[in-house]
């Protein structure tokens, strides 16, 4: 039984077909890499899995339950969390408060119990705070807890976003280019963090342009090109797949060294 199943999904924007005939599955406990050049449709796919966009055709199933058509907050409650390609923090809140929002779906205080500060609500609030700290500390964010999110550097924002997503205690975590904009050290830390997340039992779907990182982490990779998968398999296979090499190097098949040595890097305009 597959954990996440994407089945024959299609989505277009006006005349532009962003995704077409996309099918793949993710098994529980896996790190699945999702790569492809700019505009391949990776973020669009994330948006469909997390409910921000609806597919025109096809279905997405999570733990054998169809989630197409559900609202993002309903999908989040089922155990899917995500980060965004452009960190989307709540900028006027502190770092700690941002992560506390991650505990929203694990808590239940209402308008009434919150305004009256009923005993149950006060206890729950303390628990939310403690849990938020528990997710801040391993990512090295404790010192930033009281800083407004709007004052953070880019790399820090990525980390806070990750902490916020983890605070929801997801079963499936979607990371959209978590390493972009990070320096070498931060990338190395991120590698460790992602390993720890996987070790804690979370399944990951990872969109990433940093080939070294994906190849190192992913158990299995899907390559998207112009909205359709062109290759699927373990990193070693992907690195030597002629189609993939072709796509990444711009269609000059002559005299190409093995992709493993090339490290499949390409520059991306921002």
């Amino acid at each position, binding site marked *: 039984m597959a954990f996440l199943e994407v089945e024959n999904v299609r989505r277009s924007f006006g005349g532009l077909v962003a995704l077409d005939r996309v099918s793949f599955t993710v098994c529980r406990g896996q790190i699945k890499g999702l790569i492809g050049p700019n505009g391949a449709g990776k973020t669009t796919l994330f948006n469909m899995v*997390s*409910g*921000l966009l609806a597919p025109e055709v096809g279905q997405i199933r999570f733990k054998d339950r169809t989630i197409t058509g559900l*609202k*993002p*907050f309903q999908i*989040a*409650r089922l155990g899917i*969390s*995500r980060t*965004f390609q452009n960190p*989307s*923090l*709540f*900028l*006027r*809140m*502190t770092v700690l*408060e941002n992560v*506390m*929002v*991650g*505990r*929203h*779906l694990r*808590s239940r*205080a*209402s*308008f009434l119990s*919150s*305004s*009256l*500060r009923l*005993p149950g*609500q*006060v206890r*729950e*609030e303390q628990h*939310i705070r403690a849990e938020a700290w528990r997710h801040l500390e391993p990512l090295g964010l404790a010192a930033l807890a*009281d*800083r*407004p999110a*709007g*004052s953070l550097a880019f790399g820090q924002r990525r980390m806070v976003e990750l902490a*916020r997503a983890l605070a*929801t205690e997801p079963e499936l975590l979607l990371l959209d280019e978590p390493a972009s904009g990070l320096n070498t050290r931060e990338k190395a830390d991120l590698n460790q963090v992602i390993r720890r997340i996987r070790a804690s039992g979370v399944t990951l779907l990872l969109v990433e342009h940093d080939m070294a990182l994906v190849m190192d982490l992913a158990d299995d990779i899907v390559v998207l090109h112009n909205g359709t998968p062109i290759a699927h398999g373990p990193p070693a296979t992907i690195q030597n797949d002629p189609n993939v090499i072709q796509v990444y190097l711009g269609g000059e098949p002559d005299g190409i060294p093995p992709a493993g040595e090339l490290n499949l890097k390409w520059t991306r305009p921002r």
Partner: protein
Amino acid sequence: MRFLQCNTPFATFAVLAVVTQLVLRAAGMEYCLTQLTMALYYALVVLGLCLVTGHAGQVSLGHAAFFAIGGYTSAFLTTHDFGPLPEPAWATGLKQARVLIEHSDLYGGTALSVSPWAAVVVALLLTFVVAHLIGYPALRLKGHYLAMATLGFGLIVSKIVVGTAQLGASDGITGVPEWPLGFGLTVSGRRTLRVENYYIACGLLLLTLVLLRNLIRSRVGRALQAIHDRETAANAMGINTAAYKLGAFVLSALLAALAGVFFTHYTGSISPSEAGALKSVRYLALAAAGGMASLWGVTAMSVILNYLSLRGFFGSYDNAVFGAILILIISLAPEGPLKPLGQWLRHGLNRNHHPRDETTGAPPGASDGAPRIH
């Protein structure tokens, strides 16, 4: 009590309220308490906007209409003569439960009207339903649909109020009875009860402030702020954004209606000007002047400016003044004038006390960590 935690600002408010009253008494100006009491009730409306606009980021241009729904429902039910009733069991039951009460009408006869407490319940229920009808479709969408929906709604309510004979048309409803709250307190415009009513209004405002402060610093408050800051991310974090926006909107509408009810029983009347779109704009201007999200800023600004307006301080430019405030705030100090002013003052003080502030190494904006709700 947990419910009252961290109460320095609340104590300050209480002290200020008492000092004001004592000073006015000493100065022989206790008549000023009447307008002050009215200003305190208006502040409730603006505090509702503080929640829905300042925190949840949803603009409402129809809060005067909710104030009017509260006031008019209460005024109509407590002044209209529903008698003589047939005598089936339910009618006697209503009388026995004191939902319907007999009182003498203008001409010395007896009239049968709804009791103030029952009228309040009806007014709030009606507001609850209407706010859902307006808010539900508008708040399921992202964007400023609420502003448009509430603007249209406000215009409709104000037309209905002016055009309905039973609601007194352009004269409004007068002769609204006093409202015995219990505990020996009565909402009434009687001169002998002026001080008592000032404290009733202060107490209601204080209670509202405590409840809203608690709400804002909770899971619910964070959800609203998250929606304001980034709705998509809030939804992806499991927040039912439509439901939370609606909850905040309905709560603020109920506050406006409650203010309308108290105001009407206090002044003994309500007129169509209370329902006008200009009033809605005024409430929004006051919220903006108080910094939108700051409970204390909003309270201070709306009490002071409404008081001045009620004392006729702005003369015939009354509405223009509030329009100008809105324009000035939005173009010059979108976060309200109080925050920059406070920062400027703090900066001045810091310069005097620690000539080398930079040594703290705090990055710009880090000192901004002070809670938004003061």
